[in-house]
């Protein structure tokens, strides 16, 4: 059957290979920007790159799982924007950061569950479902924020972006913790094995007597949890809520996952590549920023990087 094409490279090596592609890309980008972008290599800037990457990582980690199941979540950026507004409004009205975060998490998880329910139980294509919820979240955000930035959140909220613990910035802790949890979920639980099977061979689950639906639902719900957490960082960073704050961030997240070697079919890929992919996209954006490139150029550049990464992936697959 496929003995001809696939027997040579064992799967594990292929996975490392894909991640190493992202690693090389990251090294290459750093080399280029250290020459072209003034101040790229300064310590302050490198910390900045990491900080900026945390929000993207919070989206890209669950996005990896979603893509492993041959799904997609286009609504993440819009839901994240909505959540910054919800967090800011609830925090200001109630005076409680905890309530604000709880409300934001609830909204994000509700969207995740809704996406998951439509994909899992009704078998609708994820692309269309999440495109729909993207629109819904965007509209809700604009209504809730009355079209403008919600300012005046509590000072304490800024700690989540600017504060530190044991010498490391809080966002890095949050990102690392999220990575650790999702790593354990993906590689050390039955749920994780199902994620790979959902993309690799759903029949394996059906004949194994496992209900496909609920695993899929939880994958999208996990996306909601992470978006909720990301909204905490983003609101802290903006010092308020903004209805279009994270528009298009799902594009960067999908790009990071793709650059990291996770394929859009057959359940191929993993988290290591995604972390490297997030850093690559982060470095790219940061470097272009330092070179004073407009954001339109940045979006195009990220797009080009994704295509190059997929092209390298395809070339490796053929060899």
């Amino acid at each position: 059957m496929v003995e001809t094409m696939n027997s040579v490279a064992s799967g594990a090596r292929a996975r490392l290979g894909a991640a190493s592609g992202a690693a090389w890309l990251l090294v290459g980008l750093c080399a280029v920007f250290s020459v072209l972008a003034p101040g790229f290599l300064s310590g302050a800037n490198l910390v900045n790159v990491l900080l900026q990457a945390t929000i993207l990582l919070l989206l890209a980690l669950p996005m990896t799982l979603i893509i492993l199941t041959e799904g997609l979540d286009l609504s993440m950026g819009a839901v994240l924007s909505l959540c910054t507004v919800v967090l800011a409004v609830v925090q200001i009205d109630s005076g409680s950061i905890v309530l604000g975060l709880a409300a934001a998490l609830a909204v994000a998880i509700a969207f995740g569950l809704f996406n998951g329910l439509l994909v899992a139980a009704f078998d609708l294509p994820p692309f269309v479902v999440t495109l729909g919820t993207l629109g819904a979240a965007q509209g809700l955000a604009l209504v809730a924020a009355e079209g403008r930035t919600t300012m005046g959140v509590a000072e304490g909220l800024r700690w989540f972006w600017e504060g530190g613990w044991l010498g490391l910035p809080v966002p890095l802790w949050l990102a690392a913790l999220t990575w650790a949890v999702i790593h354990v979920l993906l590689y050390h639980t039955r749920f994780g094995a199902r994620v790979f099977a959902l993309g690799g061979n759903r029949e394996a689950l059906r004949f194994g007597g496992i209900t496909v639906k609920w695993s899929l639902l939880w994958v999208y719900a996990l996306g909601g949890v992470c978006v909720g957490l990301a909204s905490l960082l983003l609101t802290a960073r903006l010092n308020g809520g903004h209805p279009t704050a994270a528009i298009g961030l799902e594009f960067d997240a999908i790009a990071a996952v793709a650059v990291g070697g996770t394929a859009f079919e057959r359940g191929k890929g993993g988290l290591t590549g995604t972390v490297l992919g997030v850093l690559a996209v982060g470095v790219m954006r940061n470097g272009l920023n330092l070179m004073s490139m407009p954001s339109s150029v940045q979006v195009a550049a990220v797009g080009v990087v994704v295509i190059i990464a997929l092209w390298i992936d395809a070339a490796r697959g053929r060899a």
Partner: protein
Amino acid sequence: MTADAIPLLELRGITKRFPGVLALDDVSLTLHAGEVHMLMGENGAGKSTLMKVLCGAYTADAGQILADGQPVRVRHAADARALGVAVIFQEYSLVPHLSIAHNIFLGREPLNRLGLIDQARMHAQARAVLARLNLDLDTQREVQGLGVAQQQMVEIAKALSQNARVLVLDEPTAALSDRETQRLFEVIGELRRQGVAMVYISHRMDEVFSLGDRVTVLRDGKYVATLRAGDATPDELVTLMVGRKVDMSYHRGERPAPGECLLEVRGVSAVNGIRDVSLKVHAGEIVGLSGLVGSGRTEVARAIFGADKLTAGEVRFAGQPLRSSPTHARQLGLGLIPESRKQQGLALMRTVCDNLLLAGLKRLFPSNLYQPGRGHAEGRRRIAQLRIATPGPRTPVQSLSGGNQQKVVIGKWLVAGTRLFIFDEPTRGIDVGAKEEIFRQIDELVRQGCAVLMISSELGEVVRVCDRAYVMKERALAGELGRDQLTEANLLKLAMHHG
């Protein structure tokens, strides 16, 4: 096993209806512990549907399932699993990017106290199960990189790990070499001793008699008969399956002397691992390419076709050197018909006629203007020529049987002007009647001046059909056999490892 013992499992009067089709009509089957029960019937006879009812993938519209004499309900795969029924389907239900151990225990992974997968225990248990099959595989390896035979063993290991009492094997040897088949038979023998009941779906007569205890024949969704394997004869079984006397054998007639040399492969090595392969195929000749699975036969075909890059040597077609490019090979008149029908470039939703014309549009319509009249005439001509059993040229290909889909593939290449056909396992998963028909097609192709290189794992097939044969071993050519030396024993001798 005694006749009056309570059967392990019994299917009674199973009926299953699909829109417009009565797939199973009052079918019964009894399974005793430690028996290998052969299930035979042509494609579409209802074997697979019956097995899907048994494993809970389908629910029967009528009829009963009894386990140890007690009626049970099998509505979901989980019900069947609880009864100890495990199925090894032809399309393996493995997850490519999970490890062997993960695949064996998918959904049943041993957990530690924290509720996480106990990796050490899972891999140890996986190794233990594989050891029962005499397999020494790295359980950390992803299934993705395994060959067909190894994947099947992982499937069987998966079933064993579930303490299966009833194992359903759906044409398990279709993709295996003779040596691997032998290995599988040993495993089956061992399971039989352990009291496992097996349903074995097969198209191969020899397996029925060498393996089976009893045989049940289905035809057109109906139960026909159950015989003791020792009491049955091949002719009898074929008659039961087909419902009328048919010639089981295609007889190779005298062929005209071979013509010009169409394909010449000179000292070819390629990135896929084959080394220093040389062979020739003349017009009007059927040449076999034999060898064990994994010996590099498919790789030779891919190298010839330009799908894998050459590192040494050259390939000439009708005297012209081939560039290492499938497009170029196709333009010159080389056709590769791969093993898996799903990969054969049939647009399953489109009509028979559309598919036939797909690769030959440029040739048929040099002006780039599609002329429906001419297209249809060509389609009808090929349907008649290849005797494709289809209600009409506008029938979607997916509703044809496997054998007829195969013919559409051949027709497609003929329309495109192909002169040399490379068949990779042309009869895999095809029932007896259609097999003979495929052989006739291949014969017809060479009579019309085409040449055929046929890759086959079935030695008997090579002997019956081919004029000459090359044998591969360990990715190099082990030898060539002319017509007068072409016997199963000689093929096997060349293909086997020494020592």
